[in-house]
C-alpha cells in the first residue's frame, strides 16, 4: 500500500497508524468521524489511532501513515506553522478533511482584528501551503463531510480503491469550492442535466432549484465554500465504472 512508505511491515497484527490534527477549525470534521456511530468502533478496531488531541492521551506526534487534518492554517500563529512542519515530517500522506482545510471554507471570510489577538488575520487552506503540498494526497469536501462519505473514504483508503480515491486526488489540487463553480463548470458549459444533486449536497441551503428552467440557483450570501456542490455533481466526475446497487 502506497501510504505505508518505507515502514512496510508484514506482521499479521500490523495496523495502519492514523492521526487527527486540527488547525483553525471547529472540530466538526473530527466529530463527523465520530458520527459514523457504531461503524466507527469497527474502524477503530482495525486501525491504530496514533494521535488525536481529543481522543488519545499521546502528547507527541509519532510517525504516521495517514494524517487527517482539518481547518485552515493561520499564518500569524507560530503553533500552526510548527504543526505544519511536523506534519510534513512525520506523516506519509496527509488527507485534508472538510472545506476549511481543502478549499478555505468559512475561513475565507475571516478578517481578524478581533480581541484578544487582533493579529490573527490571514487564513489559508492547507492545500495552499507549499510545504504540505507534496504530502497532501487527498482532499475531502463538505462542511462537515458526511459521516457516510468519511466511512466510505476510510474503507477505500484502507483497501486502496483507486477508483474511489481518484477524484479526491483531483480535489486536492482544486480551488473550486462554492456554488459559482457549479455555474462555471457545469451550467455554463452546457453540462447540467438538472438532476438537483448539488441542491441536496449543500449543507447551508445556499443552492436551490428552479423548476421552470430546470437548473440550480445559487445564493452566495449563504455559501460557506465547502465544495460539496461541485463534488456531488454527476458531471464533475463520475464513479468509474458506474456502480449499480441491486
Amino acid at each position, binding site marked *: 500500500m502506497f501510504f505505508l512508505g518505507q515502514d512496510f511491515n508484514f506482521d499479521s497484527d500490523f495496523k495502519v497508524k492514523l492521526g487527527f490534527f486540527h488547525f483553525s477549525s471547529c472540530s*466538526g470534521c473530527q466529530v463527523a468521524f465520530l458520527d459514523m456511530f457504531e461503524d466507527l468502533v469497527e474502524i477503530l478496531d482495525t486501525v491504530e489511532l496514533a494521535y488525536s488531541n481529543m481522543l488519545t492521551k499521546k502528547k507527541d506526534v509519532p510517525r504516521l501513515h495517514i494524517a487527517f487534518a482539518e481547518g485552515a492554517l493561520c499564518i500569524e500563529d507560530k503553533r500552526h506553522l510548527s504543526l505544519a512542519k511536523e506534519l510534513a515530517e512525520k506523516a506519509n500522506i496527509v488527507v485534508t478533511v472538510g472545506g476549511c482545510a481543502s478549499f478555505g471554507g468559512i475561513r475565507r471570510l475571516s478578517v481578524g482584528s478581533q480581541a484578544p489577538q487582533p493579529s490573527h488575520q490571514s487564513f489559508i487552506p492547507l492545500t495552499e501551503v507549499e510545504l504540505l503540498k507534496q504530502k497532501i494526497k487527498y482532499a475531502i469536501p463538505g462542511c462537515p463531510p458526511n459521516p457516510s462519505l468519511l466511512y466510505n473514504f476510510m474503507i477505500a483508503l484502507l483497501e486502496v480503491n483507486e477508483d474511489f480515491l481518484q477524484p479526491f486526488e483531483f480535489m486536492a489540487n482544486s480551488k473550486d469550492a462554492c456554488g459559482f463553480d457549479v455555474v462555471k463548470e457545469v451550467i455554463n458549459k452546457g453540462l447540467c442535466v438538472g438532476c438537483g444533486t448539488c441542491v441536496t449536497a449543500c449543507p447551508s441551503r445556499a443552492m436551490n432549484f428552479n423548476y421552470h428552467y430546470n437548473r440550480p440557483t445559487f445564493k452566495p450570501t449563504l455559501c460557506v465554500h465547502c465544495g460539496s456542490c461541485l463534488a456531488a455533481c454527476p458531471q464533475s466526475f463520475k464513479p468509474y465504472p458506474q456502480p449499480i446497487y441491486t
Partner: protein
Amino acid sequence: MRKVINLEGIPLTEGHSGLYLEVEDGIVRKGYYYALVPVRGFETLLLDKEAVVAPIITSRICGLCQITHSIASARAVESAAGIDVPEEAELLREVLGLAVRIYNNLLHQIVVSEDVFPDREERFAFIRKVQKVRKFTGEVLESIGGEIIHAPNIRVGGISEPLEDFVRDKILKSCEEVKPIINQVFEEFKEGLNKFWKREGLSEDFGRHNLPFFATDKFYGREIDYRRIELKYPQEIFDFPLKREVTSLFPFIDGKVVETGPRARKVLFESYKPSGGIKELHFLRALESIEALNRIEEILSSRSFEVEMWNRTFPTSDGETPGVGVHEAPRGTNLHVVKLDKRGRIVYYKIVVPTEINFMVISEALKGIPASKAEILIRAYDPCIVCAVH
C-alpha cells in the same frame, strides 16, 4: 520548592489549550487555564453581513455544539429586530438544543473514556452503547435541524421546515428505545468513575471550589442584561510572553468569577446543594443527558409541529438597540449580542461562550490540588476551546 510549569496541549480535551501552574512541593498554588488556538474572528467577519446569515455562519464556530450558536444568534437577531417567533419554533429549538446537549455530554464521555475505562474491551463496549444513543440524537438533529453538524434549518424568525407528525412519531419511538440504553450508560459511567477515583486515589470532593453559579434556565435559555458581563483581556492578566499568546477572553459576571454548566443549572433551578468537587460535575452532566431526553419526549408529545414555524420578516433595526440571544448550551450559558442597522446588516456582534466563563473557574479550582492531577480536573469541565476562541 516553588517552580512554574507551562503545559501546552491538554490531551483528551477539544482543541489546543495551555496551562500555567505555579507549584510548591507538588501542590498548585496558582494556576491559569487558557486557549491557544488562533482567533478566527467571527465577531468581525460577521460585520456588514446580512443578519439572516448569522445563524448559518455562527454555527461554524463549533463543530461540537453547533446548534447552540445557531439558536443564540437567531434569538439575538430576533430580539434586536423585534421579530416574533412562533411558539412551536421555540419549542423545537429547545428540542434541538437538548439533543445537542445529550450528543455533547456523551461525546465527552467518549473523550474521557480512556481515563475511565482502562481496559480496551470494556472501553469499546461502552463506546458502542454511547454511540447508539448518539445515533438517536443524530436522528433528531437530522430530522428537525436538517444536518447533524451545522444544522441549516434554524433561521432568523423560526425553523424553516415544519415537522410532519409521522416523523415526530418516529422520533418518539426511537426515544423510547434509547431510554434504557442511556440509563445503562449512566450506570456504567458512574461505576467506571468510582473505580477511576479509587485508582487515582482522589478524594470525593477533589477539585472543590466555593464560587457562585450562573445559568439562565434549566433547559432553554432566558434573556439577560449583557452589561452584567465584563470581559478581561489576557493582556490584563498575564505577563509576557503569555499575554501575546493567550487567545481567549475572560468574562466576569457582575464582577465575579462564576461557574456555568450542568451544576449551575442544577443549583439554581432545582435548589441542589453542591459539594463542589468535579466528580459531582461528571455525575450531574451524565444525569442531565437523561433529563434532557425526558424533556425532549415531553415537548415532542405535547403538540403537533406540522405547522408553519417561520416568521419571514426581514430583520432590520436602528443600529443602536442591542439584541441578546441566550441559549443554555451543554457546557453552560451561551450568549450572543447583536446590533443591526436599517438595511438589516450587522454592525456589532459579540459572543460569550460557557467555556470562556469556566476558564477562571478551572483556574480557581486548580489551587491546592497536586499538579499531576491538573489534567483530570480540566477534563471534568469539558472545555470546548474552539467555542471559547471564536
